[in-house]
């Protein structure tokens, strides 16, 4: 009799690391295409939509600067998340930590240091404030997780909602621009606090900070003892404890680092792109960063590529919204489908189907 069973591949081929993400994106685009086809009723429209979506964000004179400026917060927040995810700590709070960073930077730029004109001092100070604010916001669930075993998923999520309402309070209330025609936004920051641009390209220098952080995180996670400790804690907490690693301290430190990077992302977004705090300045960067960290398999280098592609996806779908009136919620659908297909295909590739055919005395396996 035939026997079929599913077994784990012991040595998945190396090319899977590239094949799996690419394949899952292709599959998701196909599924999404069906959605669009149903909407437009014409296949040519789907082709046109995809052509728009994949050309505009990557052409230098059109969407590329925008793509890069969206890549920066995604990359920074994703890097931060990769640190805690490696420990199997589920910080879902990057969005809130990013808000806090943006709020602290705004506070500094508009009120605390509004008379400082030396950009060389002002900009690093403001960004540092952002990072510290993000770190503090992540410190709360970190310490609760470490000492009270409080579920960090729920804690970080609650903090996201609190941060969002806090931000709204500020821009609808005390921080509202008196000359802003009652729109929920603050006044524009003094120009001395703006991040310098690369000439006329429209690309701001925050991208250099993000790339520097990639190197830093790579170094920390793969080349230091601390990074190794985090990995051990993620793999087996009990073993980590027995080998003398202070699990509690490391949970808190990792959360602080992760929050600081998200906060920095918020600060850079303020000083490099928005130059003012306003409603809806983040189209869910903190949540998308979760996908990015996961798609890149927590690898900092891979995250550059993935964040760039997702930045392009965001810009492309904004373009689609303008050109073809496709709602922005399509992006969430697409992101959800990408994540599902990625997870599924990763698992499917890691397993193989064995068909056992009993022969005289022995069994032969195929595939």
């Amino acid at each position, binding site marked *: 009799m035939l026997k079929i*069973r599913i*077994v*784990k591949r012991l040595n998945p081929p190396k090319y899977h690391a590239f094949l799996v993400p690419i394949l899952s994106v292709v599959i998701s685009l196909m599924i999404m295409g069906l*959605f669009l086809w149903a909407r437009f009723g014409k296949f040519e429209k789907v082709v046109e939509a995809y052509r728009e979506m994949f050309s505009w964000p990557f052409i230098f004179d059109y969407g590329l600067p925008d793509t890069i400026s969206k890549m920066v917060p995604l990359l920074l927040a994703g890097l931060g998340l990769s640190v805690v995810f490696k420990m199997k700590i*589920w910080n*879902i709070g990057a969005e809130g930590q990013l808000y806090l960073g943006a709020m602290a930077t705004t506070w500094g730029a508009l009120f605390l240091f509004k008379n400082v004109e030396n950009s060389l001092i002002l900009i690093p100070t403001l960004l540092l404030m952002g990072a510290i604010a993000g770190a503090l916001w992540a410190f709360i669930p970190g310490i*609760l997780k470490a000492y*009270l*075993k*409080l*579920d960090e*998923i*729920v*804690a970080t*999520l*609650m*903090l996201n*909602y*609190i941060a969002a*309402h*806090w931000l*709204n*309070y500020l821009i*609808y*209330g005390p921080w509202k621009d008196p000359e802003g025609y009652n729109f929920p936004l603050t006044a524009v920051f003094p120009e001395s606090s703006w991040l310098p641009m690369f000439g006329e390209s429209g690309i701001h220098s925050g991208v250099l900070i993000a790339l520097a952080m990639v190197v830093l995180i790579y170094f920390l996670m793969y080349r230091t003892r601390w990074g190794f400790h985090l990995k051990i804690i993620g793999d087996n907490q009990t073993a980590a404890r027995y080998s003398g690693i202070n699990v509690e301290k490391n949970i808190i430190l990792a959360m602080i680092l992760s929050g600081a990077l998200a906060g920095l992302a918020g600060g850079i977004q303020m000083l490099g792109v928005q130059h003012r705090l306003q409603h809806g300045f983040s189209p869910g960067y903190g*949540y998308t960063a*979760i*996908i990015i960290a*996961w798609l890149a398999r927590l690898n900092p280098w891979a995250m550059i590529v993935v964040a760039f592609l997702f930045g392009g996806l965001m810009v492309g779908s904004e373009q689609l919204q303008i050109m073809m009136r496709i*709602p*922005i*919620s*399509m*992006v*969430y*659908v*697409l*992101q*959800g*489908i990408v*994540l*599902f297909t990625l*997870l*599924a295909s*990763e*698992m*499917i590739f890691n397993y193989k189907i064995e068909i056992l055919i009993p022969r005289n005395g022995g069994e032969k396996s195929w595939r």
Partner: protein
Amino acid sequence: MEMILKVLSAAVRSGTPLLFATLGEIITERSGVMNLGLEGLMLIGAITGFMVSYNTKNVYLGFIAAMIAGAIFALLHAFMVITLRVNQVVSGLALTMLGTGISGMLGRSYIGQVAPKFSEMRIPILSDIPGIGEIFFSHDILVYLTYILVPLTFFILFKTKPGMILRAVGEEPSAADSRGINVYLVRYIATTIGGAITSAGGAYLSLAYTSMWIENMSAGRGWIAIALVIFSAWEPFKAMIGSYLFGGMMATQLRLQAGGKVNISANILMMLPYIATLVAMVIFSSSEKFRKRIGAPTALGIPYSREEKT
């Protein structure tokens, strides 16, 4: 007095969607599967319920359709985490994203429309009891449905054989397996039923609480429900108390806002339920006694595999 009764009655009403979601998740988690996609499931329930009710002019049909839609999406999660053994946290998040996106896309043409809704049904005799009648027995039929659902879930979970099997699968899947129980099947069923009930909570929002579709109308209730599951120590009756407590907080915040009696910004008031959730969780988890007493299902979040026993 009148005012207090009104607030308490509103607490039950706004606690009901939380209660549905919490009950659903209790069933799912008792089998050892964690579904963090409640927010997405509620939104799916809300939009499906609204669409069907709007187009057929039949609220009951809408409610049933919402539950079916929730079951289908929960089935997707079940397939991912039970069969493919994908990380349950990530799959749940993906489900939330998908639910938010799909409901937003489908709901665009329904914004501003009004569909039929479940109307108030006072229960004769019971609703005449002073106080209690006003608080518990002058609502719509879905609220009464939870009065049946809570004891029923409790009874099934703790007093029947299927309930015992469900809990066994959540506690000791390999032991259950060796007794001839199909762990995968039990988990599939629990996740699907749990998802359907969670979705019913979403449908409550668009079919009874209001009669409109508003984008992201669940407003974080799905996540609060996940916190409530932990408070309630995975027990239906405690879930009821917790849900009404939080419902009360949400209702009070709305009332304060509408009354304009207090001079606090609406945004600050809107933080309250989330801060309260956090504070309550801190209090509960810092008490040693509580932590010992609550029993998270031992196998919660751990995929089961026959071949790779740990």
